[in-house]
C-alpha cells in the first residue's frame, strides 16, 4: 500500500508538531542528569502546555492586536518550514520544492520577527531589550547563513534542501570533503545560536542581563505563552532536522511511500534528533556563557568557517 504524497507531507508537519515537545523534554532530562539532578519528567513540556492553555490571558495596556496575533503567526511560520525540508522522505513531496534553503530561512526569520514585534509592543523594558538583541544578533549571524547557502549552491548546482541531502547520500567523499565539513560545523554553530544555547545564551536562566530570546516571552500569558513556548520547541526541532537531514546524516529517510517506511523514518528521525540534541546538551553543560559583547567573536568564527567553505570550494579543493 502506498500513501498519497499529500498525506505524507501532512505527516511531516504533524511529526514535527507532535514530537517537538517530546524532544525538548528528553533533552531537558538528559541535561539535568548531566548536572547531577533528577530533572523533570520527559513528558513535562506537554503537561506545561496543557496547563498554560487552561489559564487566562492578560494583555499589557499599550499592546494592540499585534501582541495577540504574533505567537500564532510565529507557530504558523515555524510549522511551514517542515513542508520545505526533507523530514521523513528522501524524495520531494508536493509543495516541497516551492522554496529553497533561503526561503526556509526567511520563513523562520518571519516567525522570529513576529515575536520581536509582539514583545516590543508590550512597553515593558525586558521584552523590548530581548527583541532588540534578538534582531541585532540575528543580523550578525545572517551573513554566515548566506555563505552556507552559497556552498550548498556550489556543491549541488541548486539550493534546494532535498538536493543537498541527495548529494551527501550519494558519496561519502562528498560528505567528508573539506568544504562540506566546514559548512557542517558552521551550520552546527548557527543552530547553537538560534536555539539559544550556551555559549550564546543560557536557555533556562532567569538572569535578565544575558537574555536574548528568553526575555521576549515575559509578557505573554496563558494560551499565548503556550503558543510561544510551543513555537520555540518547534523551531528547535526544525533546526535539528535541517542540520541532520540536509547536512550531517540524511540516512534513514523513507525512500518509498509505504506506511512502514514512513513509520521507521519517524523513529529514525527522533533518534537522530535526540543524538544531536545530546551533543548540544553536552556543550551546554561543559562550557560557560560568553559575555554579551563577546558574542560578535562567536559570530565572526561562524562567518569565518562559512566563508572558508565557499573559498575552498571555489578554489577547486571542495
Amino acid at each position: 500500500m502506498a500513501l498519497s504524497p499529500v498525506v505524507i507531507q501532512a505527516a511531516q508537519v504533524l511529526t514535527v508538531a507532535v514530537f517537538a515537545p517530546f524532544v525538548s523534554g528528553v533533552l531537558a532530562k538528559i541535561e539535568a542528569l548531566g548536572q547531577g539532578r533528577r530533572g523533570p519528567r520527559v513528558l513535562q513540556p506537554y503537561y506545561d502546555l496543557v496547563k498554560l492553555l487552561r489559564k487566562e490571558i492578560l494583555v499589557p495596556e499599550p499592546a494592540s492586536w499585534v501582541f495577540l496575533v504574533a505567537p500564532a503567526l510565529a507557530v504558523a511560520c515555524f510549522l511551514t518550514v517542515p513542508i520545505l525540508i526533507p523530514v521523513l522522505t528522501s524524495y520531494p513531496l508536493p509543495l516541497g520544492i516551492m522554496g529553497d534553503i533561503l526561503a526556509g530561512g526567511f520563513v523562520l526569520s518571519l516567525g522570529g520577527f513576529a515575536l520581536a514585534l509582539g514583545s516590543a509592543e508590550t512597553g515593558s523594558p525586558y521584552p523590548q531589550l530581548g527583541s532588540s538583541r534578538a534582531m541585532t544578533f540575528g543580523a550578525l549571524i545572517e551573513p554566515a547563513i548566506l555563505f552556507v547557502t552559497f556552498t550548498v549552491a556550489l556543491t549541488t548546482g541548486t539550493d534546494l534542501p532535498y538536493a543537498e541531502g541527495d548529494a551527501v547520500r550519494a558519496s561519502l567523499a562528498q560528505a567528508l570533503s573539506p568544504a562540506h565539513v566546514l559548512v557542517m560545523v558552521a551550520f552546527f554553530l548557527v543552530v547553537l545560536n538560534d536555539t539559544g544555547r550556551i555559549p550564546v545564551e543560557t536557555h533556562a536562566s532567569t538572569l535578565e542581563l544575558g537574555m536574548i530570546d528568553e526575555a521576549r516571552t515575559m509578557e505573554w500569558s496563558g494560551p499565548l505563552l503556550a503558543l510561544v513556548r510551543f513555537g520555540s520547541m518547534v523551531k528547535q526541532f526544525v533546526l535539528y532536522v535541517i542540520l541532520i537531514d540536509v547536512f550531517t546524516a540524511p540516512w534513514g529517510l523513507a525512500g518509498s511511500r509505504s506506511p512502514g517506511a514512513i513509520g521507521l523514518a519517524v523513529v529514525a528521525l527522533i533518534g537522530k534528533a535526540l543524538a544531536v540534541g545530546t551533543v548540544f546538551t553536552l556543550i551546554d553543560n561543559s562550557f560557560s556563557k560568553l559575555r554579551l559583547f563577546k558574542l560578535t567573536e562567536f559570530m565572526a568564527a561562524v562567518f569565518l568557517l562559512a566563508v572558508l567553505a565557499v573559498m575552498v570550494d571555489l578554489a577547486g579543493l571542495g
Partner: protein
Amino acid sequence: MSPGVLAAESGVGSFQSFSVALTVAVLLCEFAMLRAPLSRSQVRIYAVQSLLVSGLAADVAIARHIPDLFAIVGLSLVLKVVVIPLIVLRLISEAVVDLVPSHRLGVATMVLLGLVAAGIGLFVVGAVHVHSRTLPTASFGLSASAVLVAFLLVVLRADVVSQAVGFFALENAISVASLVVAAGLPLIVEVAFFFDLLVAVVVFGVLMRVHHRRTGTLSTSALDELRG
C-alpha cells in the same frame, strides 16, 4: 546532472580530500592563534598546528612512497610539537604576563582582515598553477594564505610571544608549501630548514628575555614611548 556525477567529475579522492582537510585545519589554527587571548593558548595551538603539519607530511610520505619524508616527520614531531612549545612556555612562565589581551583591533575585524588575506593567498597564488606530484595543486594557494595570515598574526598582536609564535607558524605554512612544491627535496636541504628554525628559536628567546628585562612586560606597545 546528479550530485554523484558532480562529485565524480571534481575528482575528489579520499587522499586528496584528507590532505586538503589537514591544510585547511593548519589555516584554521592560525585564525585560532589570531584570536586566542592568552599567550599560553597560542603556544598550545602552535603545537597542534605542528602536529597537523607532521600528519600532512606523513600522509604524503605514505601515499606517494617518499620514505625520506619520515625523517622530517620524526624531527618535526620532536622539535615543533614538543621541544619548541616547551621552551616558549618556559620563557613565558618566567616572565610577568599581562592579563590584558594584546589585540590591536577587535577580534571580528581581525578575522575579516584574515579572511581577505586568506582569499588573496588562495586565489592569487592558487591561480599560478604550480604543478605538484604530491598534493592537489590548489593546496599551494591554501599554504600561501596560511603564510599571509601568519604575517597578520605578527602585525596585529602587540606582544613578543605572538610575534615569535607568528614566525614559527609562518615556518609551518612554508613547510606545507614545500610539501606541495618539492616533497622530494634531498633530505639534507630539508634538515637545513630545521636548523634555521632552531636559530630562530634562540634569537626569539633572547629577544623575549631582553625585551622583558628592559620594559618589564611582554607587550611591544611600551616600545613606542620615549624614555629619558
